[in-house]
């Protein structure tokens, strides 16, 4: 009964946090506690409905084949009977969106709960919660969208919220710039996505996802292959920025300028997975175009490796996590690129738990150390902050891919599908990335939580509102992967593209090798950072490969390149256009004015201002008219005189 209600009122899920946003902004703002209560309450209720809806979808197998869609007219242009453009907004529920709905609302709830403790005493407490609610609402709207344009709208709203939240400490210039960077970077990519959407609506005449997928399937009847490729690539440009893929990943590490719960929300549940989700949703389009699929896969694999190589040298705790997010998103893209919605979504699912956990753990650490972010200045935190540390370790095991933690199953799934698809180079890249992942994540753990305590730090355990989410998420990070074990793969029965293609055959080789790779990574980190107390070997290595180290530490100078491009090319051409405007365009205008003025000055000589002079000229005129009238005849005269007579 309640499940039915939740299924058919799934729009309530985004609406509740949106309402919370409105109530906080207009009413509850002066009372921080009330605001927090409204926000968390709204989110929890939404999560409740989302859970019910997800339960409804997962228990009813008809929705895996035919999504539950209901929509309302939003905009119609053209004649009522045969519109030229019709946009509907609505809800599309299938296992993919139901899973996302549950995941987003679940994680958002706990992050909000965590924020109650983390943001305590902040002057913008209420505002922060209103933003969080709006953020969650936008993301949930994106998830349930039945229409590509609706999805785009939510997509942009997510971008707006990230802008607001990254720039939450707006008195800091770095936060301000990071927010701007996030927005503009995503904007550049959205330009591509928008073009893709325009192309789709022009080519196929609809943006409803279901209809679109049907029409795309028969595309050869009315469009060419080249168009299709172009469209797919354009659509993919959007996710490149949103999901932090190379080369538009630059905003994501900077996004940690926001409060830590925001980073957790962005990195785990909302913003970045939007891109992956979009690609997953549009897989029917990519699937038709092998080139686009390859592009997605290669971008994903490259990003994964690329970000991992940066992460190994970073010093700030949140920056390391940020690059690890970029890397993990690369995995998801890789999975989608090789055609496995199952693996991609599965990794997104597990990643959401352990990454949220790790970010919240990092926030807890920062909270305790008064925002000292450098991992080299931490150490031995495990003694003073046991809950934070142990949950973080669980997260570390999960992301490194140690069985039976969540990350292992999903990462393994990706490696297997890559290998099965015959993409050996991509597999090698992914496997190496897995090694690096284990290494840098455990480097972080060994440096921050183990080793010697630093006397200048006075850490303390965080309050319960922060610890409960950590524990819950840690439990999730341990268990959620069990949904998709090779032995009992419920996941693959729900979420797949095309045919459910789980063979049932267990790829022992891949599984064992990925576990070994993970252990090797951890061991390397152990020898370099924990066993070697003075870190001699590390310093020697950094010294020996100094140029490589610098390249990695400075993130391959990509930010600098963008900065240069922005300041030289864009601002330069802006200056140029402006100068052209005031000197050439305005020059012509003012020149015309000047010409008028000059000729006026010239003619002014004729204007003596003397009465008799004027009378003389006037009389000459009278004479001329008289002569004209008489000799030319009245009709001609009237013509010449302009019809005056």
């Amino acid at each position, binding site marked *: 009964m309640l499940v039915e209600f939740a299924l058919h009122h799934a729009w309530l899920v985004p609406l509740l946090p949106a309402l919370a946003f409105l109530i906080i902004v207009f009413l509850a703002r002066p009372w921080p506690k009330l605001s927090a209560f409204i926000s968390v309450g709204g989110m929890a209720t939404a999560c409740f409905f989302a859970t019910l809806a997800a339960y409804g979808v997962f228990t009813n197998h008809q929705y895996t084949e035919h999504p539950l869609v209901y929509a309302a007219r939003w905009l119609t242009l053209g004649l009522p009977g045969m519109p030229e453009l019709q946009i509907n907004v609505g809800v599309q529920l299938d296992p993919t969106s139901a899973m996302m709905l549950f995941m987003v609302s679940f994680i958002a709830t706990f992050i909000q709960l965590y924020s109650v403790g983390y943001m305590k005493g902040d002057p913008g407490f209420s505002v922060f919660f209103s933003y969080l609610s709006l953020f969650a609402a936008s993301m949930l709207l994106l998830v349930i969208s039945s229409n590509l344009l609706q999805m785009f709208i939510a997509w942009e709203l997510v971008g707006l919220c990230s802008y607001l939240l990254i720039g939450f400490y707006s008195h800091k210039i770095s936060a301000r710039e990071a927010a701007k960077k996030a927005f503009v970077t995503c904007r550049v990519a959205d330009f591509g996505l928008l073009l893709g959407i325009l192309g789709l609506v022009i080519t196929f005449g609809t943006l409803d996802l279901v209809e679109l997928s049907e029409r795309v399937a028969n595309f050869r009847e009315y469009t060419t292959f080249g168009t299709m490729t172009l469209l797919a690539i354009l659509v993919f440009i959007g996710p490149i920025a949103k999901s932090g893929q190379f080369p538009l990943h630059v905003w994501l590490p900077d996004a940690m300028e926001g409060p830590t719960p925001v980073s957790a929300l962005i990195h785990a549940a909302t913003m970045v997975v939007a891109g992956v989700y979009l690609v997953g949703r549009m897989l029917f389009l990519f699937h038709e175009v092998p080139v686009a699929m390859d592009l997605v896969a290669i971008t994903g694999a490259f990003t994964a490796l690329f970000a991992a190589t940066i992460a190994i040298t970073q010093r700030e705790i949140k920056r390391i996590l940020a690059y690890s997010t970029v890397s993990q998103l690369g995995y998801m893209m890789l999975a989608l690129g090789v055609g496995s919605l199952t693996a991609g979504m599965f990794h997104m699912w597990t990643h959401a738990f352990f990454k949220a956990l790790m970010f919240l753990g990092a926030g807890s650490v920062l909270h305790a150390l008064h925002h000292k972010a450098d991992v080299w200045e931490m150490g031995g935190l495990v003694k003073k902050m046991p809950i934070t540390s142990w949950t973080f370790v669980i997260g570390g095991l999960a992301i490194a891919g140690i069985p039976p933690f969540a990350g292992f199953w999903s990462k393994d799934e990706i490696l297997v599908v890559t290998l099965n698809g015959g993409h050996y180079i991509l597999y090698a890249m992914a496997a190496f990335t897995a090694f690096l992942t284990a290494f840098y994540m455990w480097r972080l753990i060994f440096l921050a939580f183990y080793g010697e305590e630093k006397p200048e730090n006075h850490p303390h355990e965080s309050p319960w509102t922060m610890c409960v989410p950590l524990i819950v998420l840690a439990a999730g990070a341990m268990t959620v992967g069990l949904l998709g074990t090779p032995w009992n793969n419920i996941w693959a029965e729900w979420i797949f593209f095309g045919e459910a293609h789980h063979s049932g055959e267990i790829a022992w080789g891949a599984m064992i090798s990925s576990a070994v790779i993970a252990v090797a990574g951890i061991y390397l980190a152990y020898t370099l950072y924990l066993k070697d107390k003075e870190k001699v070997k590390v310093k020697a290595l950094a010294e020996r490969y100094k140029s490589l180290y610098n390249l990695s530490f400075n993130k391959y100078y990509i930010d600098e390149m963008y900065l240069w491009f922005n300041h030289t090319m864009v601002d330069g051409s802006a200056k140029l256009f402006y100068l052209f405007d005031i000197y050439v365009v305005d020059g012509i205008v003012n020149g015309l004015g000047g010409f008028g003025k000059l000729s006026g000055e010239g003619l002014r000589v004729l204007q003596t201002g003397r009465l*008799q*002079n004027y009378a*003389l000229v006037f*009389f*000459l005129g009278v*004479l001329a008219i*008289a*002569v004209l009238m*008489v000799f030319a005849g009245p009709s001609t005269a009237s013509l010449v005189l302009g019809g005056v007579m």
Partner: protein
Amino acid sequence: METSIYSVLAFYVLAAVILGSAILVVSMRNIVHSVLFLAICFIAMAGLFLILDAAYLAVIQVLVYAGAVCIMIIFGVMLIQRTDMKQSNLFNRQTFMAGGVVALTLAVSGFFAGTTAWADLAANTPVPEDSLGQIGQLLLSKYVIPFEVAALLLLVALVGAIVLAKEVKANVDD
């Protein structure tokens, strides 16, 4: 229409007086002399009006022009001309240009005067004896509105002249 030699003679004499005095009006260097010749010109013109059977207008001419207007101008001159009277009425710098325009005007109007067939227009009936009575009748019947307007004009001109010429007092209020 009968024409006596006297009327012809009278016309030429009067015309000569009118034109001669008009030229003197323009050419005199003393403004008072100019006004004097203006009065002579006006009086001669009244004579011309008599020849034209417009006795009433001749009277008006003498009264208004030779009398009122000339006197008024003399007053004007007296009010403002306090320097050397001998140099009071000179030509300006555009005299030659003005001469050209005037010559042109004369030529054009002379040409028109000469070429127009005036004879065809002539009614060839004598002017009624009681011109004054008829004019009076017309002014108060057919032309009553222009008449009244003219009266109003005079009133307005009167007020206007007073306002314009009134001595501006140094602001009493301050």
